Every structure is written in C-alpha cells, then in structure tokens.
C-alpha cells in the first residue's frame, strides 16, 4: 500500500516541539544555542533550536515507537522495502549492521574485493570470514567492474556454508552487476543478499536507471541518502526486505549506535525522503541530463573518455548508472588524481576523487548548468596547458589479494612495524588504501607482495591521499610477527 508521501512525521513533531517553547533542563547543554553564541552565529539559530535530545514527543531512535517509527515506515514505503532504519553514523553503520545481522563469528560471506573498507571493518568486528570474488577489471580504463553470476555461483559451490553474498551496486564509477540474477541464485542456495547501495539512492526514484536492491529482491541494502538523496552528511538509511527480522536488526544496530542520535540528521532524512518520493523522477531526469550533456562535451574535447552505457556487456558490466560522470584521463598523459588536483588548485573546482587512471565528478540536483560549463571549460584548459605524451601509466588498479588469515585474526595478532620496502612476503595486519575511494589495496590478513609495494609507491608518487596504516606517511607497515 502506498502511503501519502507528503507526510513528514518527524519534521512535524519538531515543528510542534518548537511551538511549545519547552524550558530545557536536559542535554544538549548549549540549550537551543543560547549557551554557545559563537556556534549559533555560525550555524544559525534555526539549526540550534532543533539540536535536541530524545524526549517523549520526539521519540527515540534506539527504540522508536512514535514519530521516528512513523518516519521510518514512510521511508520503507518510499523505497519499496519491508522495513527501514534511519542511520546516523553514515552508510558505514548500515554496512556493519547488514553484515552483523546475517553473519556470526567464523561464518562465511562472499564479497567482491573492491569493497569499501567499512565492509572489512565489519568483518573485523564480527569475525566473519571473507570469501573474495575477484571483480574483473577493465584494463583500458583501469576500473574494477561488477561480479558476474558465474563467479558468484562458483564461490557458492565452493563455499556451500556461506551465509550471504555482498554486492557493490553501483560501484563508485557507476558499474552495476546483474543484481536480480545474483539474488535469485543466492536465494536458491539460502544465502542472504546484502547490497552496498551507497552510490545508488537515486535508483529508487529516477526513471531509466539500473534496478534498485529492493526491486531486485535483495534482503538488505544500505543507501547513502546524503549522497544522491540530498540529506545531511552522515545520515543514511538501511533497508530490509520481507525475510529479515527488523527487531533483530535493530538490536544489532544498537550495539554500536549512539544513544543521542542527532535530530538534525534524522529530520534531514525525513525531509529528503519526502522530496525524493514526490520529485525524485524529475530531479534525476535533470541530473541524468546534466551528466549526459557533460559527457558528450567532455568527449569532444579530446583525450578524455567520459564512459557510460556503451561499456555494458551483460556480464561484469550488466548496467551503468548514467548519473555518474566518470572520466578516464590516461590518453591525456595525466593520472586521474593529477587532473583532480589541477581542477582544485588551478580552477577552484572540487571533484569527488581521482585515482591513477580516472576521476569522478559528482553531479547532483544541486548543480547549475553554468557550473557544469565551468567543469567542462576547465577540463578543456587542462588539456591545452598540461597535456603530456601518453606515458606508461600504472594501469591496473586491481591486485589480486592472497588472503592468509581472517581480517579479525590478523587485526588482533601481534605485529611489528617494518619499512615498506622490507614488507614483501609478510602478512599485513592493517589497511592500505587511497581515500577516496577507500577501497583497500591491502586488508588485514593479506600477503604483501613486491607488486603491491610498487603500486603503493606509485600511488604515493601520483599524490593519492593514502590512508589506513598506523604510519601516517605510509613508509612503514604493520606486519604479522613471525614466530
């Protein structure tokens, strides 16, 4: 049954609460901003008056029984899910909740290697064992792709005791797997299907976009409302299908969730959900049009390749999200990260991220046509001013990991710190990744090879922001202590 998506239960409760002019003898201590004029001046009084604590009229995220419950039901309805949870610690918390809801210590989960670090962090927390499916890469573009149905099938046959399949859909660059077929097959073997939809909120509301996780029959999906959905940073929604017990999921969420959830974040979810439900179709038609226009113009500049649906091959690129403006820069003789840096340093244009071969400009409802022109104009100038000969760039981003032990075991093992160049042949106990996108080059429990060290050095040379290791300079790595 379709609910009336004009309603905003949580927003209404906050409006009502403001009218009551309640005297606050509870936290937060800034007391509607009066106790912190500097902060109130910066963020605005309107904002501070609703930065409040859970109370009877505003419900409680840890145990929702009234307006938050209603708002979550509205969200579930809008997304076509059985139940929905407002998340206030980013999609990271949604990812953790999904994995911990279906996997216990020692149980197996099938995951593609190009997962976000939050997935492996969740494995460290719960002790589940990752069975990696190697996503194919496109060597021309240097991007990792989706999972094919055959590879997932193969992984299931080799690991019939696995509890779940984890799917990235879409990837950062917009590549989608055949989610429906993967779901049907996984269910046949009694596996749950968990979908990282951090970059796919718009699939639920736009037309002519790839299929969403709930529509494909997946069991759980984590959607970053704050990305394409327009809510505040750190707010997110976890969706569950009919075969998931929402009360169990809530208990899992409450293991790590704050007991003082921000009403700024939660109301932004309520408001954004209404906006998407009512206007999503036109919003994403406009976003798609912007992205298509930019792609066409950028491809005419020369040397840039803004790729899209032409890559679709029915397998590891089953579908493509046209709202993603992903641009390959290899023919320009520049790494994606170099173009990303030039855009920011020379032209005051901040894009989402750049890696060795590609960059991503995030297009959204907040963009203006004139800003799109600036981006295209700046890319054209970068080509005129900085183009180099197409040199041998380190092409393949994906390096096949050799998993020696589970992330949890490695993470909690005794370790020693070694200079990067001495680490070959040792087992890493920490993460190494470029951030963004935050996809691990090394995860805890994996063998370090000379190829990986060379790749880390290359990323550093190109100016990628490297994160993960204890050593901030990434000149040393923590490796497993040898007996």
């Amino acid at each position, binding site marked *: 049954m379709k609910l009336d998506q004009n309603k905003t239960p949580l927003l209404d409760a906050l409006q009502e609460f403001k009218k009551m002019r309640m005297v606050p003898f509870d936290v937060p201590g800034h007391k509607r901003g009066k106790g912190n004029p500097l902060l109130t001046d910066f963020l605005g009084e309107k904002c501070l008056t609703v930065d409040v604590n859970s109370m009877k009229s505003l419900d409680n995220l840890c145990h929702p029984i009234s307006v938050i419950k209603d708002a979550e039901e509205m969200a579930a309805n809008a997304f076509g899910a059985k139940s929905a949870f407002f998340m206030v610690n980013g999609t990271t918390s949604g990812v953790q909740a999904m994995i911990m809801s279906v996997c216990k210590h020692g149980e197996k989960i099938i995951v593609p290697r190009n997962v976000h670090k939050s997935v492996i962090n969740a494995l460290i927390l719960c002790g589940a064992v990752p069975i990696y499916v190697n996503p194919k890469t496109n060597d021309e573009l240097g991007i990792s792709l989706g999972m094919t149905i055959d590879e997932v099938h193969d992984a299931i046959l080799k690991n019939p005791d696995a509890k779940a399949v984890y799917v990235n859909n879409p990837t950062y660059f917009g590549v989608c797997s055949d989610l429906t077929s993967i779901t049907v097959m996984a269910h046949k073997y009694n596996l749950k299907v968990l979908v990282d939809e951090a970059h796919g909120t718009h699939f639920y509301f736009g037309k002519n976009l790839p299929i969403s996780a709930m529509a494909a029959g997946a069991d759980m999906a984590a959607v970053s409302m704050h990305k394409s959905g327009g809510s505040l940073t750190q707010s997110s929604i976890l969706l569950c299908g009919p075969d998931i017990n929402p009360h169990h999921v809530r208990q899992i969420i409450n293991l790590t969730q704050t007991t003082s959830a921000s009403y700024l974040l939660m109301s932004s979810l309520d408001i954004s959900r209404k906006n998407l439900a009512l206007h999503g179709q036109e919003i994403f038609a406009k976003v798609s049009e912007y992205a298509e226009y930019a792609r066409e*113009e950028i491809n005419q500049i020369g040397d840039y390749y803004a790729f899209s649906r032409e890559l679709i091959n029915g397998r590891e690129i089953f579908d493509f999200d046209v709202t993603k403006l992903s641009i390959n820069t290899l023919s320009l003789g520049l790494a994606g990260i170099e173009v990303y840096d030039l855009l920011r340093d*020379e*032209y*005051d244009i901040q894009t989402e991220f750049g890696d060795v071969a590609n960059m991503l400009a995030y297009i959204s409802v907040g963009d203006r*046509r*004139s*800003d799109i*022109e*600036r981006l*295209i*104009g*700046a890319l*054209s*100038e970068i080509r*005129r*001013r900085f183009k180099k000969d197409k040199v041998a760039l380190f092409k393949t981003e994906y390096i096949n990991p050799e998993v020696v032990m589970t992330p949890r075991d490695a993470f909690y093992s005794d370790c020693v710190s070694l200079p990067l160049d001495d680490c070959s042949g040792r087992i890493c106990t920490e993460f190494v990744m470029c951030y963004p996108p935050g996809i691990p080059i090394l995860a805890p429990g994996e063998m370090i090879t000379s190829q990986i060290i060379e790749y880390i050095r290359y990323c550093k040379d190109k100016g990628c922001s490297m994160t993960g290791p204890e050593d901030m300079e990434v000149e040393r790595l923590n490796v497993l202590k040898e007996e």
Partner: protein
Amino acid sequence: MEFWYTEKHTNDVKFSIRVDKQLASIDSEFQRIDVFESPAFGTFLTLDGYMMLTEKDEFIYHEMIVHPAMAVHPNPENILVIGGGDGGALRELAKYPGVKTLDIVEIDKLVVDVCKKWLPQTACGFDDSRVRVFYQDGLKYVRSCIDKYDIIIVDSTDPFGPGEGLFTKEFYGNCFKALKEDGIMVNQHESPFYPKDAEAMQRAHKRITESFGICRVYQAHIPTYPSGHWLFGFASKKYHPVRDLKVRKWKALDLKTHYYNTNLHAGSFALPNYVEEILRNVESEE
C-alpha cells in the same frame, strides 16, 4: 507619492534614483529583468536588482569598454562580445568600418528582447549587418573557438549570478585560446573601492594574469555604479595598451565619441596608488 529604485552598494551604503514608472519586470530563466523610467537618468535597466545601464551615463561604459582596444589593435576585423545583451558595446564597435564580423554571445535572450523594446539607444547596436547573435553560455561558446578573434570584449554582469562563469580562470584561458596571436581581451573589471568589489576585481586580475602576458587595468568614472569609480581590464598577447596606441590612425577615423579620446586613453591607464597596490599584490614576480 514617491517611488524610488534603491540598490545597496554595500550593507551600509544605498544608492537611490527616483522613478517615474516601471516599464517592465520579467523573470527569465537566469535572472529578474526590470526597466524603469526616471527623471534624472532616463530609462534604466537592472538585472536581479543591480544597475546595469541608464540612458544618461551608458555612453561612458560602452565607449570605454570598446575604444581603447580598438585604438591599440592595428587591424581589428573579427570581434567577439560576450554578454552585452543591451547592444551598447555593439553600437560602438559598429562605428568601425574595418570590422568584418561582429559576434555576440548573450546567455539571456530576454535581456536582448527587453532592451530592443525599451532601450533602443543601445539596442540599435544589433541592427548592424555584421552582427551575429548566439544565445548561449559564454564559457561554452569560447571553449570551441581557436585562434579566431582579434578582440574579445567581456561585457559581463557581476561575478555573482549568471555572470559568475565569466570571472573564472577557465574562462580567461579559453578566451586566450580563442584569440589570435596578437589578440586583445577587454573585460568589465568591477570597482576598487568597496571591499567586496575590490576583492572581486583583485581576483579577476589574478586570474587574467595567469593566462595573458600583458595585463593592465584602466579606469572610468561612471556615476550610477558603486562608488562611481569603475575599472576595465586590458589583457593582451602582444600589444601594449599605451605604447601601441595608434593616435593618428584612430583620429583619422573621425568617430564621434562623447567620453573617449586618445589623451584620455593614455590617462585612463594611470591608476591611483591604492589600486596599483591591490593589483600588484596578486601579480606574480617576473
């Protein structure tokens, strides 16, 4: 009854003109367009509430954005105007018999329509047969031009609103590319007086110096613009704005101007110390 148009020149300074009546008010895709009739300044046009031009003093702006570059370049034939939907710059350019093509790129067709209806004094510039009008984003238009124009005149609004893209480094770089090897770009360069305007003008100068070898700024006195002290940018690949001024040649054309003359040309590049200093602060050490 008194009816006044007021523009806030800063949060603490207002500028007002008494109005007889409002002639037009239209919301276009890009901005709000208003036309008023006033006893002191005649008909005037505002965009998003900001003064663009009045019948009484527009000659200063339009002569000064056009003639200095035209008097320096030895043979300006292909000219591009970006913005300038009122037609005033075109009107001045059309006075030169040597000009072969006169292209104008204006993002907002409604501005042109409104000016044709209410401000024929400037919109008459569109009547010249050499004029070709392109209604599109200026940045987009120049992006695909290479080695095409002798002079580009950037007659933009302020750097907030639809004119924003015309104050960016990528735009100036694309103009550089669109100009021939001895081309000149002239731009509306904001004012040095009020801090916010001065900041915008300093930023524009910095970005232009990053693309062009010769970057000078010149001034004019425009009564209806904030502080009345207004600047223009002269960015050039080859010609110096004063040393390469062709005085005799320009005088021989015998053009009728109300503000500009070749003596004033040289003088307009002499700037007050405080303006020199604002500019010098962003010029890179050679």
